[in-house]
């Protein structure tokens, strides 16, 4: 571990402010802000889109590039986890089922 750097501490403070401001932006004003029309469409699609935009690259990319092999533990784990959630509707089972597929493929086969 290296020494504590005030620039890094300031960056961490900035990141904390970003967390509060983004999570509470529409909570902060005392009166409700009128919602623009585009934001109503945003209500319907942005949350799932943001999660997909984070999740898909985590599953199908390595080192900034789309994977070119099907021998990747993440693909199988994600498929099993998705099916599990659709059938059983439980997040814990989804994570356990996905990791039960991921860890053997990843650690034993090196996928």
């Amino acid at each position, binding site marked *: 571990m290296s020494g504590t750097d005030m620039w890094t501490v300031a960056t961490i403070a900035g990141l904390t402010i970003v967390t509060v401001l983004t999570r509470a932006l529409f909570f902060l004003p005392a009166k409700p802000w009128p919602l623009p029309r585009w934001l109503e469409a945003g209500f319907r699609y942005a*949350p799932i889109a*943001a999660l*997909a935009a984070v999740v898909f690259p985590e599953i199908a990319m390595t080192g900034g590039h789309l994977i070119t092999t099907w021998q990747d533990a993440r693909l199988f784990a994600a498929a099993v986890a998705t099916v599990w959630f659709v059938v059983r509707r439980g997040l814990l089972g989804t994570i356990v089922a996905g990791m039960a597929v991921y860890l053997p493929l990843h650690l034993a086969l090196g996928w």
Partner: protein
Amino acid sequence: MRRCRARRHRDPILQSVLRHPQLRVGALDMALVTPGLAAWGVMTGVAMVKSGMSAVELTLMALFVYAGSSQLAALPLIAAGAPMWVILATSTCINLRFVVFSAHLRPYVAHLPAGQRALRGYLFADLNYGLFIRRFPQPATDAEGVAAQDAYWLGNGVSCWLVWSTSSLVGAALAATIPEAWGLGFAGVLALLGTMVMLATTWQRLAAAVVAGAVAIAAFALPLKLNILVAIAAAIAAGVVLERAPGAVAAPEPEEEHP
């Protein structure tokens, strides 16, 4: 301090929230997803150590920043000495989905004072959003319902914060013994994946998710993680167009979103 405590004891809203059974229900719902969350936190702790942060720095980050995906994105930028504005802009882009959540959830917290509203927002990460909206699709209209929703929010949010900060610090302490190659952090991706499927309640939303995923991958090379913003914009456009597609139901939103 003393005045604060006296005031807290007299605060009837907070008193009823802290005694409310929904506080435990919220904590129990979080307990069910704790294995995935904790594994993700542990790997974030490992990543903080591996990026060369000092014990003070990583403890501050684990306790205060409380935003897993933006933390993980910020680490390589901090290690590389990127300009602070680039790091904060990247974090803001990744967190933009929370702005949408906050617009959606405002009716649930509008009765609270400003400081309490900010605290409720701080405690509200992806998993909390998915769990809360599934349990409370509509804001309550009576005092009992409002107290129940707020108690659930606090129980769910505080336990999430405790699991996250504890597991991050445990991960930092164990960093030397857990190789990143094990890939335990993938449990966090699976937790986000489950939350995503939970939100896929109409076929237009499912299509929007696929569009967002494809665009996020195609535009991955953009700086500041702007691929995420571009993907969200494309998915909203796709969703709006698909709502007007022939054969689409006129009102594709029978459930939660519009209070």
